[in-house]
Every structure is written in C-alpha cells, then in structure tokens.
C-alpha cells in the first residue's frame, strides 16, 4: 500500500517534467541549501502539477533575479494584514486589465452565474507542505460556516442570494461546486476582493482547535490555557487568514508571516510552496524576505524620505510629495504618482436623511442639489488646491472604466451662478434678509453647516473656496470640523445637514462588480445613511426611501444581483450611473487624485504608472509584488 503511494507520488512528481515549464529551473538560492539537505522537497514536488505561469503583463516588465529583502513601514501591528492584500493570492483575482482570472484555482466553470465549479490545482500545497484539497473547502462549509458557535450569524452575505444558501458539493479531491437557484454575480468578485471571502480553511491545522474533532473538553481546555473564553474563540483567533497574525497558520500567500503580535518588526519569509512560476519555470516570489517595520503613521513620510524603506505607499499623502521628491537623489529612490481609483478626490454629501425638516426637504429637492453643484468653481479649486493636476468632475466613475461616459463627468459641473440662482428661485427661496442671504420658508437665513472629519486641511481649504462662490447664491456656508467617530455619528443620526468625504471608492468598475455604492445599501453611505441602514438590516432598521428615483436605484441593484447575463448587468450599471449623474446625490469636485509611491531605485517591475485602489486592485496586489525583484547590478 505504502509502496503504491510512493510510486504514484513519484510518477506524479514526474508529470511536470512532461507538461510544465519547470524543467531544470533553478531553486531560489535562499532555500537551495534546505532542499539539498533534504529539509525541503525539490521544486517539482513543491509546485502544483500545473503551476500558474506568470506572463509579462506590460512591456517594461522583465524576468527577475532571486534574492534580497524589501523593507516597508506600517503604523500598527494590525496592519500586517496589508501583506495579504499585497500578496494577493486569491482563488480568482483581477489582472492589470481588471479581468477576473483564475489564480489559486486552475479554472472556474461558470454556468449563468449560478453554478460555479471550482477546479483546484492538483498537488497544490499549503506553506507547511500539506496538500490543499477539496477537504479544506468542506471543512469551511461543514465545520465553520455551518457551525453555530463559529458562525452565529450564519453564512456571509456574498454566499446568499435573496437569503438562500447554495448547495455545496465535493466532486472529487480537487473539484468543488457551488450551486444557487438564482444567479449570484457577487460570488467571484467576493473571492477576488482584497479582503476576500475565504471559503476554504487549512483543515489539517485547525482541526486541533475544533470541538468536533478534538473533543469539546480538550478543545475548551486548550482555549482556556491560551486565554480565550471558549474553543470557538480560540478557533476564531487561530483562523485569521486575513489578519495574518498567526505564524502557525498555513497560508497560500507568496510570503508567510513569521512574527507573532505584538512586535515592531515583522519578517515575512518566502513560501516555498507558492503556486506561481515565471515563464522560465522559476518559482515566485523573487524576493526572499519582506520586512515590515511598525512606526507612528505621521513619521512614515519622514522615514520614507530618509531612505528607510524600499517600497512604501500606505500612509503617504499627496502633500508629502514635494518633501519626498526633495531627497530622492540623496537616498536613491523614486517617487511615483499613481492614480487613485476614487470617483472623486473630494465630494459633498447632502444628507437626505437630515433631522431638520426644512433642510431635509431641500436636500431631497433635486433642483437644490443641482444649484449647489453649479455654484462651485471647480476650476479654481483644482488650480488652488491641487496645482491643476486634478480634473473637474462630478462624483462618477473614471475614464479608465469601460462604463465611463463623458456626460456623467460633465453633469451639472459647469460653474454657472446665474443658472444656480434661477434654480433656487424656482424652488421658491426668493425671500432674502438684509445681508442678501436667502431665507428658508420658516424665516431662518440659509446657513448651511458642513461636517468634516477634521483630518486634513485639504478639506477645509476646498470648503473655504466653495464658501465664496456659494455666497453668490445667497447661501452662507460654515464648516464644522470634528473627529472621525463624532463625524460619522452625526451623519448617521441625521444631525449633520451635509458632509464632506472622498467620492466613490471604486471608480474603475466593470459590469461584473457590484454597483452597491450607487444605491442605498449600507449605513456607511453619507448621502442617505438611514435608507442604507434599511436595506443593510433587511428592511428592519432605518427608514424606507420615499423618493421614486432612489427606489428605482434599489430595484436596479436587486436586478443586478439576480442577473445572469453580462449585457444586462452593463445596462443596469449605465442606468444607475445616469440616475446618479442627473440626481446629483453627491456633489463631486475634482477627480484624478494622485498617490505618491516611494520605490527604491534598484527595485524592478513596480509599474511607473499605476492605479492605487483597494477593490479592485488590492493596492500593489494587482501588480504582483511576487514578481518585483532587486537589481543588485543596478545598485551602483
């Protein structure tokens, strides 16, 4: 029996020699010794039988050399999760053209967005060398997702369609299938998210903490010993693939964390079982080690400028650009400007759920919102605050997206005081006080207070400029800086009339990505927090929307959720964008916000121009940091 397994394994190990490009590829030097000493199996036995072969994504991309370490900084221990984002090893992931492609999976069969058959790569292994198989999916499904103690709130939203769970089947050792009655277009994007839906777990590792496998008493005893309240607590704590804080938890990422919390320096080592290879069959990642230092977030720009990092993007802001540029030469790095994927760098959010009845009525009046938008001199804001680098725009998607239409960007953005005043007059706000301020129907002067989170002077600078032009409409504007949590509370409870924040978080959508930001779906939406809450809590909390256009948006969003065809999803997207542009629910000001990226001179394959985006994009993730490499020859 054993001999048979050994023989089969040997045969299987030979397979890539026949099929794959891994013939005679060199071992990464920093683990070559371990391989030679027999502590690690050779490359062919570590790779899946069909590894992911990484093809050059752009013309300036080159094959790399092994070795070296990359230093980066984070502000908190918790930020170590960013390494899962940068590593971006997902079942399916976005490539640089924002196409969904299989990554960990060898392929996905998708029937009408309803039946998904996931094919794993045979021979794929966790970072501890144990096989990654359908059992890991089954463990998640049966023992985590359907366990009352581990998942007291049931399945994750992305797995539910109109409240119904899918059927899960294990077809064989490397194939699993999810079947829904109705289409679930959210499924694949959720798997590709920077903070992904993990539908698999390293079962061989987690079983020891699970009451079902270890026995309730033993599991609980283990938990008490570790300082947790119950076995479920300990299981949760050990099972944080995204938090990345458990060095013992096997991973599929290119680098594995070796440092437990708390620490001021995290070391990530190469995962010798990583499933990607370059076109010459050499296993990725090229870089041996990632060093994550923890320091105060306000010091990070200073340290980046002092040359203490090899690659840094997080916690750098546009206003650090000149400072960083200044010491570029002395400390051998380059500052690049990537484009943020925000729909608008800065946008105003009239609160359609404001507490004050008079103001609420106005905020819900499209003429009022349009007048406010027309009354902003975007050109001036762009020149004064953004050195003319931005682009005047409403809060809509970016040109890069296939769904972009110029009219979305132009809608109600031309500075036109006369038209704005005419609109306000047509609402009936014709009475004015001695100072020329318009009066509300109940006789109060129109003094509009805008809440800011008080985090950047950028917001207050922009508001200062808007204040002057709105004065010409007969509206006095005041900004009220507070603190982030206070700010959110005030907006959610309706105490705030209007707030300022960044625009749409995903400005580069494809029709397959969720248009949830364009309709009330969550309380976090500053323009209609209560309507959002209503849908977030399954029509139990918050308030039901009354305005017909908003109701239509909700309907469209639900249609998108249940849509099985790509054409239909595109139509829905365009319709939702059109409604948003016409109704001006949010007032965008400038777009094309820039994000400085500090890159050491000899670090290769980091794109010169890129998009800085959370979802889709996973920040660096989309550009595959596992293919970044250090050119030691170019150091001179």
């Amino acid at each position, binding site marked *: 029996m054993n001999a048979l397994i050994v023989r089969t394994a040997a045969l299987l190990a030979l397979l890539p020699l026949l099929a794959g490009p891994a013939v005679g590829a060199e071992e990464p030097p920093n683990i070559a010794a371990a391989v030679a000493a027999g502590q690690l199996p050779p490359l062919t036995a570590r790779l899946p039988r069909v590894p992911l072969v990484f093809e050059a994504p752009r013309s300036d991309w080159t094959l790399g050399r092994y070795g070296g370490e990359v230093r980066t900084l984070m502000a908190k221990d918790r930020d170590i999760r960013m390494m899962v984002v940068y590593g971006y090893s997902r079942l399916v992931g976005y490539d640089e053209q924002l196409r969904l492609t299989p990554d960990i999976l060898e392929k996905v069969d998708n029937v009408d967005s309803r039946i998904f058959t996931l094919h794993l790569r045979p021979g794929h292994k966790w970072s501890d060398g144990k096989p990654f198989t359908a059992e890991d999916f089954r463990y998640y499904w049966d023992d985590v997702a359907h366990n009352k103690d581990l998942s007291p709130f049931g399945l994750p939203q992305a797995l539910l369609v109109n409240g119904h769970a899918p059927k899960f089947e294990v077809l064989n050792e490397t194939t699993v299938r999810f079947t829904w009655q109705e289409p679930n277009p959210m499924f694949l994007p959720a798997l590709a998210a920077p903070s992904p839906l993990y539908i698999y777990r390293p079962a061989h590792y987690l079983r020891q903490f699970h009451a079902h496998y270890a026995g309730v008493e033993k599991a609980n005893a283990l938990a008490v010993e570790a300082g947790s309240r119950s076995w479920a607590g300990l299981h*949760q704590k050990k099972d*944080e693939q995204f*938090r990345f804080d458990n060095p013992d938890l096997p991973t599929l990422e290119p680098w594995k964390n070796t440092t437990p*919390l708390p620490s001021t320096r995290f070391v990530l080592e190469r995962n010798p079982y990583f499933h990607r290879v370059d076109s010459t069959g050499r296993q990725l990642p090229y870089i041996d080690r990632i060093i994550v*230092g923890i320091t*105060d977030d306000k010091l990070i720009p200073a340290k980046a400028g002092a040359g203490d990092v090899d690659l840094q993007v997080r916690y750098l802001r546009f206003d650090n650009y000149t400072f960083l540029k200044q010491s570029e030469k002395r400390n051998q790095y380059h500052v690049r400007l990537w484009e943020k994927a925000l729909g608008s760098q800065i946008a105003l959010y009239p609160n359609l759920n404001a507490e004050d009845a008079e103001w609420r009525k106005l905020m819900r009046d499209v003429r009022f919102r349009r007048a406010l938008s027309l009354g902003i001199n975007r050109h001036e804001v762009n020149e004064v605050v953004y050195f003319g680098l931005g682009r005047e725009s409403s809060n809509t998607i970016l040109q890069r997206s296939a769904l972009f239409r110029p009219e979305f960007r132009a809608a109600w953005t031309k500075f036109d005081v006369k038209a704005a005043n005419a609109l306000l007059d047509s609402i009936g706000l014709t009475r004015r006080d001695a100072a020329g301020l318009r009066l509300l129907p109940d006789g109060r002067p129109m003094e509009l207070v805008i809440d800011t989170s008080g985090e950047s002077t950028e917001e207050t600078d922009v508001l200062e400029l808007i204040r002057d032009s709105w004065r010409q409409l007969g509206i006095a504007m005041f900004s009220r800086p507070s603190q*982030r949590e206070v700010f959110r509370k005030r907006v959610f409870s309706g105490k705030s009339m209007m707030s300022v924040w960044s625009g749409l978080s995903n400005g580069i959508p494809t029709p397959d990505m969720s248009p949830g930001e364009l309709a009330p779906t969550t309380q976090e939406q500053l323009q209609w927090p209560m309507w959002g809450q209503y849908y977030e809590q399954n029509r139990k909390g918050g308030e039901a929307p009354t305005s017909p256009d908003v109701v239509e948006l909700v309907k469209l969003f639900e249609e998108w959720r249940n849509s099985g065809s790509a054409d239909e999803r595109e139509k829905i997207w365009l319709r939702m964008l059109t409604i948003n542009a016409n109704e001006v629910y949010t007032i965008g000001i400038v777009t094309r916000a820039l994000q400085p990226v500090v890159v050491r001179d000899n670090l290769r394959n980091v794109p010169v121009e890129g998009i800085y985006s959370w979802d889709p994009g996973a920040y660096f993730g989309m550009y595959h940091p596992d293919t970044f490499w250090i050119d030691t020859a170019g150091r001179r």
Partner: protein
Amino acid sequence: MLQYVVKRVLLMIPTMIAISIIVFTIIQLPPGNYLESYIAELQAQGESVDPQKIAFLREYYGLDKPLVEQYLRWAAGMLRGDFGYSFEFNMPVTKVVGDRMFLTIIVSFVTILFTWAVAFPIGIYSATHQYSWGDYGLSFLGFLGIAIPNFMLALVIMYVANVVFGTSIGGLMSPEYIGKPWSWDKVKSVLEHSWIPVVVIGTSGTAGMIRRLRANLLDELQKAYVVTARAKGLPPRKVLRKYPLRMALNFFISDIGSLLPHIISGAEITAVVLSLPTTGPMLLNALKSQDMYLAGSFLMFLAFLIVVGVLVSDLALVALDPRIRLQGGVAR
C-alpha cells in the same frame, strides 16, 4: 507608626476604586467604541468592512452589554489578575505588555541614572557658585533643556543624524535582534542604541532637577547652622555634604512617588517620535483606538504605582527627616 502605615494602605483601596471608575468613564467618554473606531479607520483607508464580522466581534467582546456590566466585569477580572483582553492585538493584555515593559524599565532606569549623574554635580555647583559665570552658563543651558520639548529635540537629532551622518536612528536595538530571545549581543545592541533616547528623554528632567536642587540648596546655605558650622572651622566640602545638602534632598525623596510610574510609562511622545518599543506608544495607540481594556488596565497599573510611590516617599521622609511629625496623634 505601624498604625499609620496600615491606615494608609487601607486608604489605598477606596482610592483605587475611585480611580478605576474615573479611568473607565474617561475611556468611554469619546463617542463610539473600539469597533466603531476600527470601522472608521478602515474606511478612512478606503477598505471595506464585513458587517457580519463586526456583529460577531461586538457580541464576542461584550460591547453590546450595558456600561456598568462591562465595568464590573473588568474590575472583577483585575482582582483575579485577569487584566482583560486587547481587541487590537486579539490577545490578553498581559501578553501584549510583556517584553515592552522590560525594555521600558531599562530605558527609564538608565535615564534616571543619567539625570542624577548630570544634575547633582551641576546643581551643587551652581548653588555654591551662585551668580558666577559658571552658574549663569549652566542655568542658561538648564532653561534651554526645560524649554525645548523632548519630542522636538528628538526630531532635530533625527534630522541631523540623517542628513549629516546618513544614519537612521530610532528603535532600541538593531533590527536583527527584534523579536529574538535575549542574548549578550542583544544586550550590547540595546546599550548602543539606548543613549539617544536616554539623552533626549533625560534633558528636561535633568534641567528641572538642576533648578530644584539649586533652589533648595540656596535656601539652606543661608541658614544660621551653616554659618555656625563654617565658623567652627569645618572644611567647606564637609559642611556642604553633612548638613545643607541632606536638608535639600527632601524634594528628591518626595519625587520618588512620581518616579515609579514614570519608569513604567516612559516618555510617550518622545517614544513615538523615536519609535521606541516601549509601553508609551502602545498606551497612546490603545487610547486612540479605544482598546479600552488595554488602556484601562495600563492606566490602573500606573495609578497603582503612583499610590504606592507616594506612600513609599511619605514613609521615607518620615524616616529620614526628624522634623516631620505624624499628625493627628497617630504615632505620638
């Protein structure tokens, strides 16, 4: 005397209860709780949040319970030596504080030694040579030391070190030792790195101590018994050492009360600027992110040290200075 000590120790109990209530209330005063500031922080970075996960955490951490219940749970836990659970690190508070506490004690202890070693000779010199050029010069430096905020000095030193010498400072040891078990090399590395924080943190303390020592000593030097001692022909150094200096040290003993917590907490802002792996930055972060048990337990520990420190310095004063009498007839 014994009665006095017992009374003081018993008084510590209501004091600590009052402090614990105040600490808990103040931590809870800002709106929201840990999870809300966590969500807000994620969103400020453009990340999304899974509402289900938040619901799970809220229940798991007991944040949905009334405040009084949360307080009682925490207070009862502390009596049993359980300082609660840090949300941020997802582990018990004691484990989070662990190694940092040790490093903090080292830095603070060396800083205190540095302060004493520098402040004593200078203080004595400026008192005995009042209004001399030396006194003026050292007083000027002393005022500079008091006036320049520590973190500012730290920033300036960091900038100069980087631009002039091309080295980066900060941290308490070479990167390769972080997270490694203690070894002789690691100790050496810590010593090599610790002089900058020691100087930076120690400056204002040194300056303050010079001023206080000088003022106290000057008071004593003009008293009649000093004149008598001199008139009797005692050598000047012996006079100084034997009488006025000892009298002038009362302030020094009462300082012990505030010294103990200082050893543990370190200089928060300076530690943040220098990115020292001490407890200061951790406390600051815990307060910012409303990681209430970590912050609360830490503050309680500091409060406890203050209470103990004050007791110790009071007792030491009674023992050392015969002029101090126990009031209220307790030990008469």
